[in-house]
């Protein structure tokens, strides 16, 4: 029964979810909203599972003095700080000038932006590896990337003009590569993904795919 009931719920909800796409008549037109609300409620309740797990593992690491246990101290202190300030400020915690707002604007946002900014350097290092002209395919990739990058900046067309090419030709080449070759490739992948999603969903609804349920 531990498996059958979840499988039955999955099948029923899955079928209703498919039906609501095709049936605009009430109550089907409200199912999507209902299911989303229920998922949000369950997710919101489950967040405590995650938070408690994080605290438990971090506390255990400190208690046993495992390697890098200092990071766990930072995790617990940060967690407690934001929770205490959030609860203390109650409903006004999002108001400008509140302690929570200060932590969000001056601690969380810069840290998050810093991580995101690292992406620029990672893109550079990954591009360096990907664009090395080791074989024909990599060479084509290199040429295409070079033209696209050149076509996206004003200096690209300026170089084109200095080489005797009509103005805006390099940017047109860049647009053509992106709109024609790139889009064709992306759509091919997208069709495969869509079919994969349908197939996986069907396997789950029919109960053929059960491994996501875990133990017997």
């Amino acid at each position, binding site marked *: 029964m531990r498996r059958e009931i979840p499988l039955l719920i999955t099948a029923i909800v899955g079928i209703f979810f*498919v039906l609501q*796409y*095709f*049936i*605009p*008549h*009430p109550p089907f037109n409200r199912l999507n909203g209902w299911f989303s609300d229920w*998922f949000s409620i*369950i*997710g919101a309740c*489950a*967040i*405590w*599972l*995650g*938070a408690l*797990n*994080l605290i438990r*593992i971090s506390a255990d690491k400190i208690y046993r003095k495992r*390697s*890098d246990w200092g*990071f766990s101290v930072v995790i617990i202190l940060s967690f407690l700080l934001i929770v205490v300030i959030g609860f203390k400020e109650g409903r006004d915690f999002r108001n400008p000038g509140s302690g929570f707002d200060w932590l969000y604007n001056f601690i969380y946002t810069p*840290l*998050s932006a810093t*991580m*995101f900014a*690292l*992406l620029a350097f*990672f*893109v550079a*290092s*990954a*591009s360096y*590896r*990907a664009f090395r002209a080791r074989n024909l395919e990599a060479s084509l990739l290199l040429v295409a990337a070079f033209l696209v990058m050149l076509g996206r900046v004003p200096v690209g067309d300026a170089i084109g003009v200095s080489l005797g090419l009509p103005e805006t030709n390099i940017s047109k080449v860049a647009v053509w590569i992106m709109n024609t070759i790139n889009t064709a490739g*992306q759509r091919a*992948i*997208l*069709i*495969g*993904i869509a*079919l*994969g*999603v*349908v*197939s*996986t*969903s*069907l*396997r*789950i609804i*029919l109960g*053929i*795919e059960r*491994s*996501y*349920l*875990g*133990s*017997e």
Partner: protein
Amino acid sequence: MRLTTALFLTLFLTMSAATAQEADSSLTVDSTFIAPPDVTPVMVKNLSARDNPNDAGGSILIKWDLSVDDIEGGKVTHYQILRAETSEGEFEEVGEVPSGNSQFIDNRADRGREFYYKVAAVNQRKQEGKLLWQVRSESALSGPVKSTAQWFDMRRLNVFVGMIILCGLIIIYINRAKSGKPIFIRKIAGLDAVEEAVGRATEMGKKIFFIPGISDMDNVQTLAGITILGKVAQMAAEYETWIEVPVSRSLVMVAAKEIVKEAYVKAGRPDAFHEDQVHYLTDDQFGYAAAIDGMFIREKPATVFFLGNFYAESLILAETGNSIGAIQIAGTGQQTQLPFFVAACDYTLIGEELFAASAYLSREPKLLGSLKGQDMGKAIILLALLAGIILESFNIFQLSQFFSVIE
């Protein structure tokens, strides 16, 4: 004195309006301006009001033929849509559309209630946001009409047919597979490398990291990812190698924990499973990326799997994994992240390969049958594409219209 002026002005305006318009017109003017002569537009014709199709009720579709004065620089500035609950009732404005438009959807028509509609062709002049004069001609009445809910959205018929064909093919091939007929599935390098990747971690005596992406259990990519986790965890348990699964969603943590536990039981090593192998980090995208990068740098795993839904953090994670020399296998349905994984990982499951992984690794006939059905669906789409290219290139038939989807 003021009262006398107001009465005189009212009388003057009423007389001017009567002169300027036809019998079925009304006039609204500023206190100091009147409409010039011969500006009243001809009313619209063939007004029809009917239930807006393919919806849950509550809306009426109103259509009309444009006024003959609705031309560039003509006498129509816009159309007003008027509604009443009885044919003799007071008509109130429910909306307006600019000139050149010949339809309007009244989304405030209560389901099951009868309504009557008129459309007024309006000509007006404004100066600095102030209405100087306005004249209009109302059409004949249309109605009664009431909105109803439909049981099938006909605009999605093509999706329905496509779904039936695809699901039918998948079910046919699942049944074929159950009957024992051999099924050929092409080799997928990324999945063949799974065992090699786990073996490498065993040889090096290092950890395996499995990252199931940053989406929750409502995303099919996460489901596909954690389905593969079961197979990888079983291999890791058999090879006695530590597998760690840091997650960004509580529900994924609960599901992944059950899956890893089950994998250890299947491998005959339930005692080796540790609750902390699957642990929660944070829901925050870049906080999650920072935490995993930190673990990569400190613990230097031999093997990393990125299987699930990823966004901008994909390259931050994969490049860090690459920098520590880990063998990396990635797979996602996010096509914008695939190039990053291709550039930074040793193997990448592209698109549908992620969804095929469970069947490929388990070799279970029913799952393989669904893969074959999916491939047949792809073959049909390829044929349709080919036919569409030929038909549309020679302008014989617009096949693409059959594939347009209403969101």
